[in-house]
């Protein structure tokens, strides 16, 4: 998959279609997000590991709104970019999507709902993919049991805000998690359950299931359980799935008509 992809993005650079390709680079025994601008660097482009590239793309566009860039993206990256575009956080016209599918191992690790973008340039989509975990164990808990479970989990919180920082859809410059009206400043753990509930609710209709929040959590709070259940609710209540098509209207987005 990698050699094919390298040829493809090398061509994008050589032809001048884009000024750079946002992808992952292997360096110093680790993998990092990187903007490839020259064909001779492409040999270090890799597909393993996963980083919130949609956030990086948004940052790069803010730096230079006119720049045209390609992004080597997984399903979740693409969905994140689409949701960001709906909220005017990114300009899709200046992005060339270079889609790649996730393999079974990766899809399993994230318990992904849709481990591929709409179009892929290499590899094969996992057809008929169904995530293994549908959170039945959790759903079967009584309210009392749920309370005990979440209390135990959220008491571990280190208030790093890593869940928010790693989230491609958390772009607000003024974050309600930092508003003393809701969450007392400087307390550890943050007050139960408001801190985590605010974040979960703010992601309703936004979360694309990339799992970066849970990956970033130092104490292993199962944040994707919360997010998954809310995504199910949004689907059941409004028939809405995040990140499918730029034309799908988000039911939670409020718009003022003038």
């Amino acid at each position, binding site marked *: 998959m990698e050699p094919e992809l390298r040829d493809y993005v090398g061509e994008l650079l050589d032809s001048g279609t884009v000024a750079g390709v946002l992808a992952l680079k292997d360096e110093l025994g680790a*993998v990092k*997000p*990187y903007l490839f*601008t020259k064909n001779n660097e492409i040999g270090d482009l890799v597909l393993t590991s996963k980083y919130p590239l949609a956030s990086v793309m948004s940052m790069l566009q803010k730096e230079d709104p006119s720049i045209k860039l390609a992004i080597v993206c997984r399903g979740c990256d693409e969905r994140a970019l689409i949701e960001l575009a709906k909220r005017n956080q990114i300009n899709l016209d200046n992005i060339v999507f270079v889609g790649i599918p996730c393999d079974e191992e990766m899809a399993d690790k994230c318990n992904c709902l849709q481990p591929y973008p709409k179009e892929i340039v290499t590899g094969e989509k996992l057809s008929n993919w169904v995530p293994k975990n549908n959170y039945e164990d959790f759903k079967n808990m009584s309210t009392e049991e749920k309370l005990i479970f979440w209390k135990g989990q959220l*008491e571990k919180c280190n208030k790093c805000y*890593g869940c928010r*920082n790693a989230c491609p859809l958390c772009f607000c410059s003024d974050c309600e998690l930092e508003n003393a009206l809701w969450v007392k400043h400087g307390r550890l*753990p943050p007050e139960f359950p408001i801190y985590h509930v605010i974040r979960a609710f703010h992601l309703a209709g936004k979360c694309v299931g990339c799992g970066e929040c849970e990956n970033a959590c*130092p104490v292993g709070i199962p944040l994707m359980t919360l997010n998954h259940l809310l995504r199910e609710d949004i689907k059941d209540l409004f028939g809405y799935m995040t990140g499918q098509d730029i034309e799908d209207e988000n039911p939670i987005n409020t718009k003022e008509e003038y």
Partner: protein
Amino acid sequence: MKYDNILTTCPYCGCGCKYYIQVINGVAKGVMPCKEDPVSEGKLCIKGWNVVDFVYSEGRLTKPLIKENGKFREASWDEAYNLIVSKFKKIKEQHGPQAFGLLSSAKTTNEENYLMQKFARSIIVTNNVDHCARLCHASTVAGLAAAFGSGAMTNSIPEFEDADCFLITGSNTTEQHPLIGSRILRAKERGAKIILVDPRLIQLAKFADIHLRQKPGTDVAWLNGLMYVIIKDGLVDEEFVKNRTENYEKLKKEVMNYPPEKVEEITGVPKEDIISAAHIFGNAKTASIIYSMGITQHTTGVDNVKSCANLAMITGNMGKACTGVNPLRGQNNVQGACDLGALPNVFPGYQAVANGEFREKFEKAWKMDDKIPENVGLTVVEMTNEAHAGNIKCLYIMGENPMVSDPDINHVKESLESLDFLVVQDIFLTETAELADVVLPGTSFLEKDGTFTGTDRRVQRVRKAIEPLGESKPDWLIISELASRMGSSAFEYNSPKEIQDEIASLTPLYGGISYERLDDLGYLQWPCLDKDHKGTVFLHKGKFTRGLGCFFPITYKPPAELPDKEYPFTLTTGRILFHFHTGTMTRCVPKLDKEVPTGYVEIHPVDADRLGIKDGEIIKVSTRRGTINIPAYITRKVPEKIVFIPFHFKECAANILTNPALDPIAKIPELKVCACKVESIGE
């Protein structure tokens, strides 16, 4: 457009998390966790996430400053260097090299610490070089070196994942070493037992199987108490004691004076809890002792550390994975600063200055005509005292802020003001720098190359991500340029890499460490003796560094100052999650300042009620050293009669109150216990 991620090591605590700095067109934009990093595993604490903000904060020094008529003016590097050189030479001529003191920095790189002590020993020709490890783990270095032969954390951070039992004492791990704290919580979920010994109800208390809330400063007593039960109930690892240790009978004799009833009397911990804790620890397959300032910052700091070593050895929890005595070092490079000889008694790699062979080796390597003194130099607090007495005339301080960090600040201020000449090299105009004659602008970790050594002896690269701000220069370059202007030809380096190569050639512990290997392997844990040595995950396997592990019988001694009628409360101090040390790097970060904008004193509701104190009210806390006004935080986190103050905040500085009484061996001050008075002032 250029967008890259530079892999570097965090400059806050000793965990040694590596992460990426996101750089766009030469400007650092933020942090990206590194998922492949073995310490952080792609997770960070709030300080790490926001690290870029302090680098660009408005207060950064970008030009040298010279004080004239009590006011600073900007100066050129030439001018600043010339002034320093002429003053240094004059003071050395008039008062001799022992009138100098140099403070190195646990914040700067290994290479820079190496150069600072090289500057002290070869340019000034004094061993008066020390740094703030004196205030945190000097007792560890002394205590563990005596017991085991090596003064460092015995095991490694990833091993915490698999330990069966933790004894955590004097370490608020989830706040002070968040990425170690998170591993302990994970181990707990897997079924590991946690014994917490701490006067305060810290976050870990919720996860502890048993929490002993001892009176501050009674650690030797409960440690002896645990060993009493372990010996009495047959939980001693006889095999280990017989084959690997010496002096056991003497220990046993002493420990048998500490039955649980007596320990309860001294420590206030119920005797049943002492017995339960001893049984949990003694029965664990692998047990790991984790401690920090709560053990070390006492006049009995070395005694406390030796007692921890005793407990680990009698249960055979040494020299194997997931065990050991694990002091958590509080700063990114406090381990490295010690390793590289920024201490008054040792050269790099703990080679004693008292040893003539070592002195000769370094004199030769450093192309010296002078002889390095064989006498041990002055420690941090002793330098302050000697300055006060008029014997130290000149201090050169790099990246330290004794005006907030040291005990009895009023005394520190008088001492610094009585100097003939004070040079401070820092990235901010700190409270200490304000008192300087010349201030040299160093750079932050983002603007230079080097290495830090994390708490588990993990040497890792610091990589330059951006150019130095303004005219600031990396500290290694400043020291080198200053040394060259002092007439030395032994400080000509093109890059920190060359300094590391020199370190490796003179320091057996670091013998196999090079930038090439660190790039390949990500890290190396010392001892790393040569280029083929893979480094050492845990120490004392099969044999202690000193041969046999040595038990020290320790008698309990009370703290230097106990509550009395006039000062009825016990004051204890420490750090909090959201800030770091003297606050210079965190209080300028909006997201951290928002969480905790100023200091506070934690006081129990019963005490607050009795004194008519309301939550948030400004109250007066006094000790024999001084008085501060500070907001009250009424909480059950502290027991009755004990108050806690974080020491980060200069406007209500805990260290105006603290006691500078020293441990006789390690010279560490008793920052964790003193007597105080708490009063409402009706505000």
